[in-house]
């Protein structure tokens, strides 16, 4: 054991590895912060540079890009309401309202702190519990995934605020939009109408940008610039008090991220939403969520960064890539003649230790690079809106095009922008739409796969303790939401009567 650890340390402790990891995190933060440039795209573009590097250095470079990218997505989500990555889509819910109040630096700081803590917890979990979590993750079949995603959708009741019915309808629209494209079971078209660009479905990025950034820009051009009230927290970063207030939420979100990250195919976005939902449920100020609550930013970022180390669990322990990025990293292993899986733990354990050491260092790099970038990036909010919003629009055009090199995506972005603007005018909350659009494909696929396995019997959704666990949680959350809704209506009724009297 000790011998292997020392060998691993010497494999890792090279200048090349330190530099590669730092460059990786830096590239990741930059790419993640630009709408349209996704983390998988950045990891794929970095892959050729690893061919000539030693295996550990090359893999650490890719891991750095991955970790930096997940955090970087939160920067534009907070500053300009355009999440750089789908994983950061939950961060916009409270991050942008905070930026609008002049608290961008505070939100960015909290996003960084929670990202680093979650990343650290995720890395520790990878090192200590890889085996246990991998075997637990393998128990998740389509029925379990369906109940998990269904439970995640209960957050809609939370983000809809007082507009519960409209929020639910908004979620239905999101679920419907997610069905556009080729049906995964039968391979037939749905809502394609001869438009080949729609065969692969609608990409997340143009939809996210369109739904959140464009309505904000349209609103600016249609109305006069609103002068914000002087906020004492404007320009001030997150304090230790803020961090301690959110610490419990961050730890909880991190573990949610670890568990979901270990399940192949789930990804960071559902984890962020689940963490957010849990934070809102247990918060002393649930009514502030969605209006610029710092705990909301912490929860979302802890949830999505918590998966970063955990997605490596099925890859290293079982040789199964959990998402696109780990699939690319698997490719990097194979290029260097390595095959992740149980055998690697016996044949190349020193290499595993070297990667673990590098992963731990990546959290420190993330903190240092993130902290340095916030100092400059937070100045963006000082640019007058009459200059900033047109620039954001141009960035959105480039970003939407870059996802698939398709001008069609720009049209989709504008179309979604108009839809978002219409929703804003009719006071239909757009957050449920976004949540449903992101979780929709997973919900439908797992629903139909389960029924395919069971021959059409719904009993499959109640067949395992994991399914029951999520059903019970769903019932509890819905009951609590219904109770809170009824209570608020009752209070309003009593207040009205009092006034009449």
């Amino acid at each position, binding site marked *: 054991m000790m011998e292997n650890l020392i060998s691993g340390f010497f494999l890792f402790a090279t200048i090349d590895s330190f530099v590669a990891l730092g460059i990786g995190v830096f590239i990741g933060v930059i*790419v993640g912060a*630009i709408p349209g*440039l996704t983390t998988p*795209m950045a990891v794929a*573009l970095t892959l050729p540079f690893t061919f000539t590097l030693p295996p550990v250095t090359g893999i650490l470079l890719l891991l750095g890009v991955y970790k930096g990218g997940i955090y970087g997505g939160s920067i534009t989500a907070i500053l300009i309401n355009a999440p750089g990555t789908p994983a950061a889509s939950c961060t916009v819910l409270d991050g942008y309202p905070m930026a609008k109040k002049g608290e961008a630096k505070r939100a960015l700081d909290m996003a960084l702190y929670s990202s680093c803590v979650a990343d650290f917890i995720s890395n520790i979990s990878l090192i200590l519990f890889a085996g246990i979590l991998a075997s637990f993750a393998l128990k998740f079949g389509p029925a379990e995934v369906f109940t998990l995603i269904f439970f995640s959708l209960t957050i809609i009741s939370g983000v809809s605020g007082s507009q519960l*019915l*409209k929020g*639910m*309808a908004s979620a*239905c*629209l999101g*679920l*419907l939009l997610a*069905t556009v494209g080729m*049906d995964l*079971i*039968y*391979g*037939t*078209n*749905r*809502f*394609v*109408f001869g438009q080949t660009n729609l065969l692969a479905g609608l990409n997340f990025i143009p939809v996210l940008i369109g739904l959140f950034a464009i309505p904000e820009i*349209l609103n*600016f*051009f*249609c*109305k006069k*610039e609103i002068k914000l009230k002087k906020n004492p927290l404007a320009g001030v970063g997150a304090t230790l008090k803020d961090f301690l207030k959110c610490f419990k939420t961050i730890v909880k979100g991190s573990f949610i991220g670890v568990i979901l990250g270990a399940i192949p195919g789930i990804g960071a976005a559902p984890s962020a939403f689940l963490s957010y939902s849990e934070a809102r449920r247990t918060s002393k100020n649930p009514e502030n969520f969605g209006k610029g609550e710092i705990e909301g930013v912490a929860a979302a970022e802890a949830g999505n960064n918590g998966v970063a180390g955990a997605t490596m669990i099925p890859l290293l322990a079982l040789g199964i890539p959990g998402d696109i990025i780990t699939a690319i990293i698997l490719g990097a292993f194979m290029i260097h003649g390595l095959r992740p899986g149980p055998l690697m733990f016996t044949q190349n354990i020193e290499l595993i230790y070297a990667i673990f050491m590098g992963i731990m260092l990546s959290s420190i790099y993330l903190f240092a690079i993130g902290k340095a970038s916030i100092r400059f990036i937070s100045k963006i909010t000082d640019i*007058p809106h*009459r*200059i900033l*919003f*047109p*620039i954001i*629009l*141009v*960035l959105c*055009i*480039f970003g939407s*095009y*870059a996802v698939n*090199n398709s*001008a069609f995506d*720009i*049209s989709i972005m*504008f179309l979604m922008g*108009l839809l978002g603007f219409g929703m804003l*005018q*009719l*006071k*239909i909350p757009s957050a449920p739409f976004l949540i449903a659009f992101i979780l929709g494909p997973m919900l*439908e696929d797992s*629903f*139909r796969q389960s*029924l*395919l396995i069971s*021959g*059409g019997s719904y009993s499959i959704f109640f067949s395992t303790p994991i399914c029951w666990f999520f059903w019970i949680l769903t019932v509890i959350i819905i009951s609590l939401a219904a109770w809170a809704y009824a209570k608020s209506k009752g209070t309003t009724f009593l207040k009205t009567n009092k006034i009449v009297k």
Partner: protein
Amino acid sequence: MNMKSIKLIKKDILAASVFVFFGLLLILLLIPRGVVEPGNVELAILSPSYYPKIISYILILIGLGIFIKNFPNGFFEESEKIEKKYLFRILIIFITILTIVFFLPTFGIPLTSGIALLFLLMLGGERRPIIIFLVSTLVPLLIYLFFTKVAQIPIPNGLLESLL
């Protein structure tokens, strides 16, 4: 009644009408026409149209729910009168978007972005010519250079193909 207020249909009712209309449109037209049903579907539940149909029905039910919820208080409310200037600005911005989408394939992204920036900066209220000129030329150029040279993403240059 305030001089600047007017009785308008409630936003909730408008939203509910949209939900019901769209739900019906899906069930009666978009799903039958837009979802290709394979011939070998063994179970109706597994058919590609099953899931969208369920959601469409839920959408209609929610729309009706909103109608019922608002029924006791009436379908109209007093709202602020919409200023002509506001409507004009909405129209202008919609036309700008349509123009961008229409000219993008011919003009290319850098040129279209530059022109759009120039127009939007002026529409937004920026009056300093030097700022307008610098922002509308340098910003698209810098973003273009980042995407093409650093991220290696080919951006369509359109009319500027020979220059860039």
